[in-house]
């Protein structure tokens, strides 16, 4: 009986439903969401090996220009070696290798050599080895975005758990975590990153994390959790004495349950916005770390390694790799940053 009455009441929309409704009305937010989803789809496809699998294949000539530029015909870029002057001297009678040329030619004929078709132009041009810049930039997106997402995820987890403990319990534990926070923030960000990088490079952990991607993720998440900790802690201090938490205590919910099943959903919007803010800054940090040689190793490709290569290419007038990496990165970062703004507007209860 009473259940029927409840069903007849008008349902109030949940936090997420109303946030989604507000986000849908934000045109900029929706466009950036679409762009972000395209990039995420690209990352997933590249991860599955459906896209840009052959990025290491040398499909074009060295520095093949993009299609829209066309083949470079003047040839001014390549040095011309002048042919030898004077008559050719026949040295076959004094050449000690002369008797064996015939034999070698026969043996060489046993192997089939196929001249690889190398295209002279590529959709977005080619790099020094003739690899397709379009494939590289997609593969680079996969690495850069994965690094940014994972590092932001780990930093958020560290910051949220520590912030929850510090804010919820307070007291001695809270003081201890505040001390750790003060220690971490008093060391300039970049120096802490360098210290962790130095240790990961030559220490015993270097053998554990052989793939350079994990090194970057660890550096960024170990260094980047402090801001999230601070915000989450403030939220927990605000929430821990609220009625619903007291009510949960009254029905016998444990500390952990109150912290993570009662309070955490109520502050999840703060965490989500922080997560996406950190994705953007970590993607930018990955680029710089890779350039400094502390990030993604050279046998992988990320936007950072592409920009590193581009520095030397630009002096030779090959601008397409730089442009492609910059354009892809700028598009994603702008879209993601605008999406974060839209998310914050949609989720911030104060603006309601």
């Amino acid at each position, binding site marked *: 009986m009473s259940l029927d009455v409840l069903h007849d009441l008008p349902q109030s929309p949940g936090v997420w439903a109303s946030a989604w409704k507000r986000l849908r009305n934000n045109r900029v937010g929706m466009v950036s969401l679409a762009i972000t989803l395209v990039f995420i789809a690209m990352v997933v496809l590249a991860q599955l090996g459906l896209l840009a699998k052959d990025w290491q294949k040398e499909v074009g000539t060295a520095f093949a220009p993009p299609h829209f530029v066309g083949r470079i015909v003047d040839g001014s870029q390549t040095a011309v070696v002048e042919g030898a002057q004077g008559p050719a001297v026949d040295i076959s009678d004094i050449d000690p290798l002369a008797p064996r040329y015939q034999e070698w030619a026969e043996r060489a004929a046993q192997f089939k050599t196929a001249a690889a078709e190398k295209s002279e132009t590529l959709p977005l041009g080619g790099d020094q080895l003739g690899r397709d810049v379009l494939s590289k930039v997609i593969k680079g997106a996969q690495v850069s975005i994965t690094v940014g997402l994972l590092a932001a995820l780990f930093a958020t987890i560290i910051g949220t758990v520590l912030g929850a403990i510090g804010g919820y319990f307070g007291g001695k534990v809270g003081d201890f975590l505040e*001390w*750790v926070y*003060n*220690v*971490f923030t*008093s*060391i*300039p960000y*970049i*120096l*802490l990153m*360098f*210290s*962790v*990088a*130095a*240790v*990961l*490079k*030559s*220490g*015993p*952990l*270097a053998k554990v994390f052989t793939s350079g991607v994990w090194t970057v993720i660890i550096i960024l998440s170990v260094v980047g959790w402090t801001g999230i900790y601070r915000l989450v802690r403030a939220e927990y201090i605000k929430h821990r004495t609220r009625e619903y938490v007291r009510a949960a205590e009254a029905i016998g919910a444990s500390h952990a349950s109150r912290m993570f099943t009662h309070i955490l959903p109520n502050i999840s919007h703060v965490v989500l916005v922080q997560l996406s803010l950190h994705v953007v800054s970590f993607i*930018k940090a990955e*680029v*710089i770390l890779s*350039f*400094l*040689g*502390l990030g993604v190793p050279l046998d992988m490709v990320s*936007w*950072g390694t592409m*920009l590193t290569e*581009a*520095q030397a290419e*630009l*002096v030779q007038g090959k601008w397409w790799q*730089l442009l492609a990496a*910059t354009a892809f*990165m*700028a598009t994603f*970062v*702008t879209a993601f*940053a*605008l999406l974060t703004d839209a998310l914050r507007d949609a989720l911030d209860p104060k603006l309601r």
Partner: protein
Amino acid sequence: MFSYILRRVLQMIPTLAGVILLIFFLFKWFGGDPADIMVGLSATKSQIASIRTQLGLDRPVLEQLWIFVQQIFTFNWGKSWATNEAISDIFATRLPVTLTVMIPILILEVVLSIVAGMAVAYVRGSLADRTVMLISTVALSISFLVYIVVGQYVFAFLLGWFPVQGWSDSLWKNLTTYAPLPVFLAVLVSLAPGTRLYRSFFLDELGHDYVRTARAKGVSENAILFKHVLRNAMIPILTNVATQLPGVFIGSFLIEAFFSMPGLGREVLTAVNRSDYPVIQAVTVYLAALTMVINLVTDVLYKFVDPRVVLK
């Protein structure tokens, strides 16, 4: 005031102790074996043993920590593992180079961003405001790396207005020849986020009642902006400058690497690549201490900028 400063200095002690512990144990537990790093793969057992004794690695951990603390407070860090250069010499020779570039950057950046932020805040909501905001959003999304690469190529290589890279012994020549391009690029890049930030500070202030009152009694717009709003926005501005100050001493390692300047940032970077632990440790500990001092000085300055602030 005095008791406040004293209390703050006392509060620094546990934090500094934490920094020292963090750096010491980070390198102790997670770092490589110094003897291995210093002598390489072809070392004999006796060589390794002698290095271990020299560095005090054969002593108990607590004693090693004590040596580390002594090094910090006596400024006697010994020599770099890679180049055998005394660490104090590294500081003495690299820091001036970094400051030569970073001080002009900081001053220009703050002054220009404040002016631009004020101008944009004044015309808020107009087309100009929205254009500036859009440009700064897009400009922010491009990596600093790209600006340096392209800037160096265009202004130094193509146009030849500046030397591509280099450094000399004369301060004047450095300031007039080698520093301008890096300074220009760094200021250009920081202008967009700076403008955005200072705009928000000024917008906060422009919405206050005292601005309306000042307008109502006929104070000119210039006087409102420069005498009232700027004065009141000083606290967030000061906070922001204070957060940038430690960076002035580290230097922009990107700029120093690109323009081959023998500064502190590049030194730390090479130290990381060579696993030259003492250099990294020294720079990190001192810069952390410096950051704490800067924070204290900023808090005290608040009192002078805004007499309403109560230090407690």
